[in-house]
């Protein structure tokens, strides 16, 4: 039956289910107890009864029930006796009957998933058969239901639509894009300057390499905390500003009312954190440029700017391309820094929405849609960079 089909539920039956699957949406589970009791004839009987027929009175230390009483059956025309079955199935043989309030010893508990005998229309034909409750959503009086999901796979754009119409989708996309536009140019200029300082071959410039690369070893969550300690209400930035007399009282930067400050904090934290990876790539690229070319240009009197513009940057293009692709992809995934600095509510990004859908809202499909969307954006940007650089090369030759 295709998803969305309305079905009539004709019968139900329990079947064994593994405990890991109990969390599935729509799955209806039923516990059955194997009980031992003395019936009205004074005979000891043992059999299965559903959990709803027994009121549990005592549980052991681990929380497992071990004794209880039979619940009364309500309704004038109902059978006042509760049957015990030979198996955990109400179609099996009845081994005995108990009156209400009879005490029982609970020997064993099993959890069964409910199966429904459903009838529905598929391609003009009426089909009937058993299916697990996990695939069906019950409607109204529980005699009708709708197929919610299957295990055979079916194409649907429903979750993508839900993602796009989510109220956080556009803000998340906008913020992610804004951060990319803000971070990457600054980062590349800074990384090239860093690399040139290191490559200047001054005494002790090796130390700079180690210092510049420190940020590479700090996890993004830690970076978020570092910048949080700077920007928080009683943080270092306020301390310094107040110390030099710029402000009189601490300013609140990271609040819903000052969204732009949160963006600025995220921007600084990201530039601080991830510039060094670009720098490492650029340094490697610079080392590949032959000394002779640079020395020749110097002999001919090229200024630093001319050398950077006409020799270093063109020769660095392959490394810059790699760094650009890497940084853009990583920028689409920015997450921990945003979580720490904004709590994930005021300013949100795509990766944060993925997490929210997956973890808070338990919409696994929508979370997967977000993740795929990030992948798609990364692919498109990588393709764009590759294409842009190739056409430039062709234009040159």
């Amino acid at each position: 039956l295709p998803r969305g089909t309305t079905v009539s539920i004709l019968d139900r039956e329990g079947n064994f289910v593994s405990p890991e699957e109990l969390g599935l949406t729509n799955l209806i589970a039923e516990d059955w107890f194997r009980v031992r009791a003395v019936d009205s004839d004074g005979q000891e009987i043992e059999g299965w009864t559903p959990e709803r027929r027994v009121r549990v009175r005592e549980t052991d230390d681990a929380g497992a029930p071990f004794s209880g009483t039979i619940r009364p059956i309500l309704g004038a025309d109902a059978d006042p006796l509760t049957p015990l079955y030979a198996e955990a199935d109400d179609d099996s043989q009845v081994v005995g009957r108990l009156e209400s309030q009879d005490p029982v010893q609970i020997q064993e508990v099993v959890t069964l998933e409910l199966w429904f005998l459903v009838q529905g229309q598929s391609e003009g034909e009426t089909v009937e058969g058993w299916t697990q409750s996990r695939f069906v959503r019950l409607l109204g009086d529980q005699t009708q239901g709708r197929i919610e999901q299957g295990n055979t796979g079916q194409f649907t754009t429903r979750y993508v639509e839900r993602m796009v119409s989510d109220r956080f989708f556009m803000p998340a996309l906008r913020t992610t894009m804004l951060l990319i536009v803000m971070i990457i140019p600054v980062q590349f200029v800074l990384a090239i300057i860093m690399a040139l300082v290191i490559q200047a071959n001054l005494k002790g410039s090796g130390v700079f390499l180690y210092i510049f690369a420190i940020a590479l070893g700090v996890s993004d969550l830690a970076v978020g905390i570092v910048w949080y300690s700077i920007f928080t209400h009683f943080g270092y930035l306020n301390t310094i500003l107040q110390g030099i007399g710029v402000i009189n009282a601490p300013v609140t930067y990271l609040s819903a009312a000052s969204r732009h400050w949160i963006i600025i904090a995220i921007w600084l934290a990201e530039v601080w954190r991830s510039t060094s990876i670009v720098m490492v790539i650029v340094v490697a690229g610079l080392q590949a440029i032959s000394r002779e070319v640079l020395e020749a240009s110097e002999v001919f009197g090229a200024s630093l700017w001319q050398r950077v513009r006409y020799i270093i940057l063109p020769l660095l293009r392959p490394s810059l391309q790699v760094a650009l692709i890497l940084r853009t992809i990583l920028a689409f995934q920015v997450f921990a820094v945003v979580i720490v600095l904004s709590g994930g509510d005021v300013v949100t990004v795509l990766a944060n929405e993925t997490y929210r859908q997956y973890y808070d809202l338990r919409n696994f499909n929508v979370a997967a849609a977000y993740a795929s969307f990030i992948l798609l954006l990364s692919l498109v940007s990588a393709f764009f960079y590759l294409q842009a650089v190739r056409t430039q090369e062709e234009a040159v030759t």
Partner: protein
Amino acid sequence: MTTAVEAKVSVSPEVKAVHRRMRRRQALARGLTYLVGILISLWVLIPIIFIASMALTTPAMVRAYPKSILPFIPFSTATMEFFLNSRGILPGIRNSVVVA
């Protein structure tokens, strides 16, 4: 490069002047490079010093305001000890190492 040229043409005062200018420019460029390098180093190091000083001071100082700009005053390992003794740190470290 400069020494070789110097040896040959050291006689002409004009060339000497050009040379002095070049040297001065080189020294300036070197100084600027160091300055830029040190500035970027500060940009990288200051946040780390902030967080390290926060980790190595008393819990009261972490919450205090205004904070002392001079780091590590008063120096204390109380915060660090609290961190190391809190539950979940050792298993956390072990898991991180195993995954790595």
